[in-house]
């Protein structure tokens, strides 16, 4: 018996109770007794036993635990008193108030479980990477005051912020890319163009070299076809035709 109690006490210590009612409910369940007919003596004994051990623990609501102990002892003593039975009187069970509280607390525990479940469900949220607010609405007003010099100023200030190696990579006085873009534009607007059209600054060697490289590049990627009607004559550039003489498209 002694050993059994020790065991029971040990097991109590593993439990955390939210309050005296919680502990009482635990004891009632553990002893498998009817909540409406609590064996007060037995339960009180175990309750007090737990309190002795619990003082070693960090129990938050110690006062309330002790108040409940007092209450239990009071109920126990009242139950020991002989009851004079009078036919008219309703016999009041001294345990009734406690039972009501326990039932109410049991209900709360059930509700708390439901809320716990809800909390678990809401434990994860799936969130967007960024707020969606700043949408790229193309505001017409946005561009109203912009002119071509703003473009240049913006670009040059961006470039001065770059390190020198990147400038070499990305910005040259004249580039093949620039010539390609110009050529595409001319083909679009005029349908065809001449090599000389691509040389904007006459006399600039870089200009000529880049224009020439641009044409070679464009031919390689089948963007254009080139024609030259005489040696050293101007080169005529036309959009690449995808159709052969039979009218069948070729890749």
């Amino acid at each position, binding site marked *: 018996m002694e050993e059994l109690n020790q065991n029971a006490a040990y097991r109590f210590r593993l439990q955390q109770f939210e309050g005296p009612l919680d502990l009482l409910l635990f004891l009632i369940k553990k002893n498998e007794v009817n909540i409406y007919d609590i064996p007060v003596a037995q339960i009180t004994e175990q309750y007090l036993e737990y309190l002795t051990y619990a003082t070693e623990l960090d129990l938050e609501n110690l006062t309330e635990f002790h108040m409940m102990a007092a209450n239990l002892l009071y109920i126990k003593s009242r139950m020991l008193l002989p009851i004079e039975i009078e036919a008219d009187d309703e016999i009041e069970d001294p345990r009734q108030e406690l039972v009501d509280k326990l039932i109410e*607390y049991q209900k709360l525990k059930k509700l708390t479980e439901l*809320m716990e479940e809800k909390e678990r*469900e809401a434990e994860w949220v799936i969130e967007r990477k960024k*707020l969606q607010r700043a949408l790229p609405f193309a505001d017409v007003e946005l561009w109203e005051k912009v002119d071509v010099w703003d473009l240049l100023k913006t670009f040059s200030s961006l470039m001065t912020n770059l390190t020198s190696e990147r400038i070499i990579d990305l910005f040259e006085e004249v580039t093949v890319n620039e010539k390609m873009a110009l050529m595409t534009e001319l083909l679009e607007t005029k349908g065809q163009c001449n090599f000389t059209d691509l040389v904007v600054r006459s006399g600039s060697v870089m200009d000529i070299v880049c224009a020439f490289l641009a044409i070679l590049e464009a031919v390689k990627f089948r963007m254009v076809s080139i024609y030259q009607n005489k040696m050293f004559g101007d080169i005529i550039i036309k959009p690449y035709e995808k159709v052969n003489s039979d009218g069948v498209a070729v890749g």
Partner: protein
Amino acid sequence: MELQLDKETALIEAILYLENEPIEEAALIRISGLSKDVVEKALENLQERFSRSDSGIELSRVGGGILIAPKKEYWDVLRDRYGKKNDAKLSKAALETLSIIAYSQPITRGEIEAIRGVSADTMIRLLLDRGLIKEVGKKNVPGKPIQYGTTKEFLKFFRLESIADLPKLDESDRDRFELNG
């Protein structure tokens, strides 16, 4: 009224797409410039469309607001990249206190303590700090004790539309507890 309201439905969808937080119907009406009836019909249309199995989005109502979000069934796949865990979980004591308040509001401190059998001071203060409960009035008894109730933040935290959506006891539990109540 056999209106389809396609354009209106589309507009409401666009607004919901742009919002990240639940938005109230009144705000939807104001932003869209549509009438209450039309907005409600549009929401109905959306709800119906989203309920189809090829839709990855659903419309839900949280704390009086409306929002669209990915359907729960896809969360497992999405969690790795988009999931955020809420680590502000409540302690058991806080959750018990909050449950009493949620299910019995408005309720005073004394009434809470009577049910839990322990002092409720600390827990009430904590829940007030977290914005999950608030003072909602004073009870008309001597001493005029403060009554507490839950907040919108509470609804958001538990993803509830209203306190009417609090989880209910099942029938057997209800019988057991309410016979004596």
